Every structure is written in C-alpha cells, then in structure tokens.
C-alpha cells in the first residue's frame, strides 16, 4: 500500500507540465543520438550532460534518465534495421536483423517496442519495491564494506565489459589513478596537478567521458572508412493476433531476467540481453526458430534490455554505488546537480526519487508512442553521411566541454583524453570501466582510509566484517577461477599447435 502511495506521490511530480516536457525531450534526443552511428549510451549521456545544467534538479535528472533509456532503445532500432550494434544491442542484431531480411522489419520493431514497454513496467515495480528496502540495508554498511563493494564492482564490471579480468581491472585502476588528480580532501595536498590551475579541482568528468567515448570513437569510425547504406525497405507495423500472443510470454520472461540482472554488480542491459536470449532459446515454445528471425528472439532481449536499464538505478540510488559505467556517469550527473545518491537520498529528496521512478514509466509511454508509429522518420537519420555527422559531433563535444566551466582550458584536457582513449581502443582496452574507476576512485580512497583508521591500520577489518568478508571471498573465488581458466586455455592452445581442431570462439560480450 505504501508503495502505491509513494508512486502516486511520484506521479504528482512527474506529471507536471515542465517535467513532462523534460521527459519527452530526453526520450526524443536520446533516441535520436542513440540511433547515430558510433554513439552508445555513454557517449550520448556525456554529450548531452551540459544541456541539463540550466534546468532544475528533478527535471534535469528526469531528462538524463530519458536520454539513457531513449538511447538504449534507439540502439536496438538501428540494430534491427541495419545490423549496426553500436554498443549495447548486439543481441538485437541476431533475430531482429534476420526478421528484416525476411521483410518483417515492422513486426520486429513493434515487438521490440511492446516488449520494451513491458520490461520497463515490470522493472519500475521492482524498483519502487526494492530500492527503499535496500536503502535500509545500506545503512548497515561501514567504510570497509563500501570499499569491498566497490572492489567487487570493479571485478564484475571488468569481467562483463571486457571479457578479460586483467584488462578490465587495469582500466579500472587507471580510472582510479586519474581520479587521484586534484586536491586530496583529507590533507589538502594537490596531487598530480603538474601545477596546472585547471587541474586543482581534478579532471572534469565530462572531459574524461567525451575524450574517451566521443572523440576516440569518432576517430575509430573514421579509421574504418565504412559508409552504410540507409534502410529503405517497407515497414508494416501491426502484427496479427497470433503474432501478438507470442510476444507476451517471452517479454515477461525477459523482464524478470532483466530486472534481476540489472541489480547485480556489473550487471546491466548487455548481460541481461544475453541471458534473456539464452533463456528463450532453452525454454521458449518456438525455440527452434530462434536465430532465424523469431519473434521470441527479439521480444525477450528487448524486454530484458529495458528492464535492466531501469533496475540498474537501484544500487545507485539505494546504496550510492553505481554498478556499471553508465550508472557511474549518472552518479556524476547527480553530484553535479548537488545530490549525493545513497540511502539518505530516498528520504531527503523523496520528491526527486519518486518523481524519477514515476517519470521512467511516463518515459516508457513516450517511447512507445513516439517510436513505434514514427519509427520510419527516425530512420531518416541514417541518410546523413558520416562525413557531415562527425564534424557536428566534434562541435558538440567542444561545446559540452566548454560549458562545464566556461573554460577553454578544459578542451585541451578533453583532447588529451581523446588521445588516451584512442590509444586504449587500439590496444583493445575497452575504456568503459575507466569511468567507473574514475568516479569511484575518490570514494574508494575515502572509505579505504577511514576503514584503516577505524581498525588502527590493521587489514583484518576487511575480512572479519561479514559483508566485506563475503565480498572479498567472492573476489578471491573469481580470481582463482580466472587463473584456472587461463592455464586450461594454455593447455588447449598447446594442444592446438599440435594440430587438433580449434576450440569454439568465445561469445562476444558487449561493452555497456
């Protein structure tokens, strides 16, 4: 009952004219930018972050959330119609694109739209029910537990986004080190500023994000010289009743999987899509058709995608720890707006929290109204050639960086991060975990130092407390498992050189 009451309270805030408008703008702009080649949710959010500076807090966060799930949705549209997985919709390419090849684009888009709606709705109920309860649990967390949770998050994210624990952890640590630049809050000492005045407050989040995800991505796309042919087929949207009936069970399955995986550290839309797809492949009534353009292959993953992109707000808002790079960026946005996400946020900024939750459902409606009937207009975005698009994106990167502090110095920092991001991309170091390390770095240091202060310098505090002990146990298990896997593969490689058949290629895991 209390939940319904709270949700009603939230809708009161979400349904004001102003917030409705921000939600609509967020969804539209997010979808639009999400459709553009080479810009996934991370780049989209960081590109549009500066637009929210002059907007009131609740409106700004509603708009950013809209941008996020709008971009997520836009991604799946381009995946279905043109098999371009930008960043987060690799699974949608499989059956979605197969359906396009069969001339069923409209059905695939309708399925994705409706399933996303179902997934989003289920996830919001989960969010409303679970976030406050988890917030109570979070109040029991001490500094050692927070430090352990962050490190556990690093390990999970590293593994999920890069597929290689070592590479991912390295990138996380790199992010933590970059977060060290600036003034140390405990002693007031300036660290690694190289005497640049613009680095005293640390490196700007927008500079890091735009450099590593905007500029580096643009350059990478330019290297590939690929011009895409825009989609020009017919779109017939309305499904028949038997087709419609096939959407529902698969979408519900996807919603459940997505809601659950969205909450776990390192979880989020990409892994949820894979899990939902795998589940459908195993349990669906039409499992034989999956992979060749089946409705279930689209419905399950689309629902999981949207569900996970909403439930991944739960750890951020109730514990105050973002569980994946996109949420880390969101946390940055919260902090820029002067809100510290965490257990106290739900109580102190109740109108913000419930307004945001309710706005997600409103955004759901916007997405389905705007996107399903109007999808063919969205697709005209692809008619813009990349040679026109990339100078424009560069310009937005410049304006975005500049308007954070109205300082042109920041642009040189962005350019430097662009170079670093490009080097990392070329070294096959996926830069997404960097953002998580960068945002959590200062918090990790703070909690680490506080925990050691409490324990008088003894590291046993990290293993004797039940919560942190469990988390460190899991980390240790993970590392042992990775070591084991490496040596097992090593033996396989040795065998392969002797002329045995090569092993199956690993499933590609999408970056967030």
């Amino acid at each position, binding site marked *: 009952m209390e939940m319904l009451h709270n949700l009603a309270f939230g809708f009161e805030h979400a349904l004001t004219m102003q917030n409705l408008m921000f939600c609509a703008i967020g969804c539209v702009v997010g979808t639009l930018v999400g459709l553009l080649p080479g810009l996934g949710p991370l780049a989209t959010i960081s590109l549009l972050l500066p637009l929210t500076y002059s907007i009131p807090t609740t409106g700004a966060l509603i708009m950013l959330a809209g941008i996020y799930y709008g971009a997520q949705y836009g991604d799946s549209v381009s995946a279905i119609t043109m098999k371009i997985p930008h960043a987060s919709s690799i699974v949608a390419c499989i059956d979605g694109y197969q359906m396009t090849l069969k001339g069923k684009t409209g059905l695939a888009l309708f399925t994705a739209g409706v399933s996303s709606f179902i997934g989003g709705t289920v996830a919001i109920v989960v969010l409303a029910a679970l976030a406050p309860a988890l917030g109570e649990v979070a109040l029991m967390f001490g500094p050692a537990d927070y430090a352990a949770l962050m490190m556990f998050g690093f390990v999970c994210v590293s593994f999920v986004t890069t597929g290689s624990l070592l590479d991912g*952890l390295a990138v996380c640590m790199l992010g933590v080190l970059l977060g060290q630049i600036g003034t140390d809050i405990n002693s007031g000492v300036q660290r690694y500023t190289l005497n640049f005045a613009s680095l005293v407050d640390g490196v700007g989040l927008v500079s890091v994000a735009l450099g590593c995800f905007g*500029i580096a991505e643009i350059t990478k796309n330019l290297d590939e010289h690929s011009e895409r042919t825009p989609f020009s087929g017919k779109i017939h949207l309305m499904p028949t009743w038997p087709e419609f009936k096939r959407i529902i069970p698969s979408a519900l399955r996807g919603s459940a999987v997505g809601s659950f995986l969205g909450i776990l550290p390192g979880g989020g839309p990409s892994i949820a899509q894979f899990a939902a797809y795998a589940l459908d492949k195993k349990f669906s009534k039409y499992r034989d058709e999956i992979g060749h353009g089946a409705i279930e292959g689209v419905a399950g993953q689309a629902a999981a995608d949207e569900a996970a992109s909403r439930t991944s707000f739960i750890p951020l808002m109730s514990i105050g720890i973002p569980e994946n790079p996109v949420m880390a960026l969101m946390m940055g946005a919260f902090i820029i707006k002067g809100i510290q996400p965490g257990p106290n946020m739900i109580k102190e900024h109740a109108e913000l929290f419930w307004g945001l939750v309710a706005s997600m459902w409103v955004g759901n409606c916007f997405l389905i109204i705007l996107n399903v009937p109007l999808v063919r207009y969205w697709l005209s975005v692809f008619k813009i050639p990349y*040679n026109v698009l990339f*100078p424009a994106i560069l310009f937005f990167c410049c304006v975005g960086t500049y308007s954070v502090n109205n300082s042109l110095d920041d642009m040189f920092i962005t350019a430097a991060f662009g170079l670093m991001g490009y080097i990392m991309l070329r*070294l096959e170091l996926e830069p997404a975990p960097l953002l998580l390390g960068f945002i959590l770095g200062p918090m990790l*240091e703070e909690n680490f130092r506080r925990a050691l202060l409490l324990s008088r310098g003894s590291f046993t505090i990290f293993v004797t407390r039940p919560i942190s002990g469990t988390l460190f146990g899991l980390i240790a298990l993970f590392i042992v498992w990775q070591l084991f896997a490496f040596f097992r593969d090593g033996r396989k490689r040795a065998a392969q050189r002797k002329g045995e058949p090569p092993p199956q290629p690993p499933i590609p895991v999408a970056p967030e």
Partner: protein
Amino acid sequence: MNDRHLLKGLFLIAVALAFGLGSFKYQMGHFERAGPGLFPLLVSSVLLAIGVTIVLRSFFIDKVPMYFNLKNIAIILGSLVGFALGSLYINMIVGILFLVFFSTLAGTSYSAWRNVKIAAVLIAIAFAFKDGLGLQLPLY
C-alpha cells in the same frame, strides 16, 4: 616488437610508474593514518603488477599486430586544439570554421561547399545555444 599484447602491458607499466613514482613526492603516512601518497602508491602497484603480468603473458600467446592511424587522430586532435585557440584569441565563429574545415580532412571525401553548409548550420546551432539555452559561448 609490434605486438598489441606486449604494447598493452608496456603502456600500463608506463602509466603505473608515472603515478607510482609521482606518489613518493607526497607524504606516505602509515596505514593507520594514511598520507596523500599512500593510496596512489597502492593502486599503481596493483596496476604495475597487472602490466607486468600482461607483458609476461604476451610471450605465451599469439602475437597480434597493433593498428594505429596517426593521421586521423592527429587531425581530430588538431581541430579540437585549433577550435580552442581560435575561440580564445579571436572568437568561436572562427573556431567553428577551423574545426569544420580541418577535421573533415580525416573524412572519406572532401568538399569545401559542403563544409560551408555544415559550418553555417553549426554556427546557427551555436547561436541557438547561446540565446535559447543561455550557454556562455564567446561567439563574437
């Protein structure tokens, strides 16, 4: 030498050393009361260990050459720096013109007339940002 895995490890080692050696400039303190240098030293040690592991591992796995297009990244970064300098010393319209005309050198085809059109649209957007959203752009 052109082995991506090896270069990756060396890159990480270089970063770890830069931050790790830099941390000795700051007070270490001890674990009970950590100074500003302690945490970066710990983190860079972990990064160093990972870098060394990746270098060692690169000797046991197949070599992959690394691709690096110096021209494109140089053009893109050059156009950003040019935009900043142009906006700083003249005004942002000059910056936008430079950005468009220089960055498109990295594209697959080059057309001056197309660049004029792109620049015109971007300048119009910049005016909309300045007057509509209230961003403080030094346009003129």
